[in-house]
């Protein structure tokens, strides 16, 4: 048997953690309807909360491809629930890059894992892409489609081509912070229990 190739067990692990990550994303997403600023705050919320399952996932990664496949699945799910296809390339790109970074550390180096998770978190920003790229028509669409002007103004004040850079950086930073917290939580609970 070839050790480098992914086994059925790996695919199942990917599936489980993708489902978990999606549940986290979805739960946070529900909050976003309250106020558009919360939509912008996803870059803080999701990396922090998502870090716990992800750090557990990282301990299970030994081969190249697991993170990449996860990002492909996320892109598919995001498309299915109507987030659009514009972000898909970014989601997959961040997954592959994160995978490459983690591989350079042999999937064991904790420093590389932090950076890798930070990069992986950039997929969250992909959900903002339709807002940024097609700002004008998107805004018109939203208002015509029944959103209030106030909601839109707030949304576009929080997310536009200027702030997207900040959001990306925040995403990365909180990804790294999240990785530290997640690692601590994993250590506290899972290593003690002998699951990892």
């Amino acid at each position, binding site marked *: 048997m070839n050790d480098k190739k992914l086994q059925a*067990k790996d*695919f199942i*692990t990917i599936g*489980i953690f993708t489902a*978990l990550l999606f549940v986290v994303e979805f739960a946070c997403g529900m909050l976003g309807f309250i106020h558009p600023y919360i939509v912008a705050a996803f870059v803080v919320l999701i990396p922090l909360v998502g870090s*716990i*399952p992800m750090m557990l996932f990282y301990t299970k990664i030994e081969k190249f491809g697991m993170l990449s496949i996860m990002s492909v699945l996320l892109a598919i799910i995001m498309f299915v629930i109507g987030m659009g296809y514009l972000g898909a390339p970014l989601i997959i790109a961040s997954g592959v890059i994160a995978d490459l970074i983690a591989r350079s550390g042999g999937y064991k180096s904790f420093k590389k894992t932090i950076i890798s998770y930070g990069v992986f978190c950039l997929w969250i920003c992909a959900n903002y892409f339709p807002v940024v790229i097609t700002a004008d028509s998107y805004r018109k669409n939203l208002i015509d489609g*029944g959103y209030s002007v106030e909601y839109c103004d707030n949304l576009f004040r929080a997310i536009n081509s200027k702030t997207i850079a900040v959001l990306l950086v925040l995403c990365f930073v909180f990804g790294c912070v999240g990785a530290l917290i997640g690692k601590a939580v994993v250590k506290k609970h899972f290593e003690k229990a002998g699951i990892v």
Partner: protein
Amino acid sequence: MSLKLDPRTKLYMIFVVSAVVMMSATTPFLWAVRIAMTMIPILLLIIEKHYAAAFRFLIFYGTALLLTFRFLSENSKGFLSAFLVGYCSIIVQFMPAMITAWYVVRTTKIGEFVCAMQKMHIPDGITISLAVVMRFFPTIKEEYTSIRDAMKMRGIMLGGGNAAGIIEYRMIPLLFSCVNIGDELSAAAVTRGLGGKVKRTSVQVLKMSAADYLLMLLFTAALAVFVVSKYII
């Protein structure tokens, strides 16, 4: 009466509905097309005897639609209306895709799904992982319910006065059980020959029926009407 649709038709439905959801409706005619498209999965749910779900979706979607059109306008201001607008328009926006996705996940057997993916030459890795994701949502919900019950039994509300606990108390047990279930699942799947070198055969024979072609045609037509009347006229 039971209508057996090919998973490929269902996937196509998801694709079309997601595409339409992305383009927001701007005129009453476009709204009509969109609402008609939402009704199809609801009808299919009724045919498949998921009455409760169909009813729930119908009420939910109907209320949101009504609120959006009747009470909220471009000028709505203030926190409450912003809140309402937020919820209702997002429900109206994404509900069609969610109903369709729910319908597909509920009515497709994993075996059928895998077989259909294989016929479309999707790589095995993605097929297996996606099948696990689909299968796993109900499991997560179940596990989460038991965790909540356990917490109630211990008398812990939210985080028990500990902000981080809100997440920690729920997430950690959930992860524990999910990891265990995952191990069991892969043991079971591998014993049944998943990941073997032989090409997978399927008990289910997938065949496109007249209903499949009809639905595909219907959805293609709806998509075409939507795009043409939005961007060309």
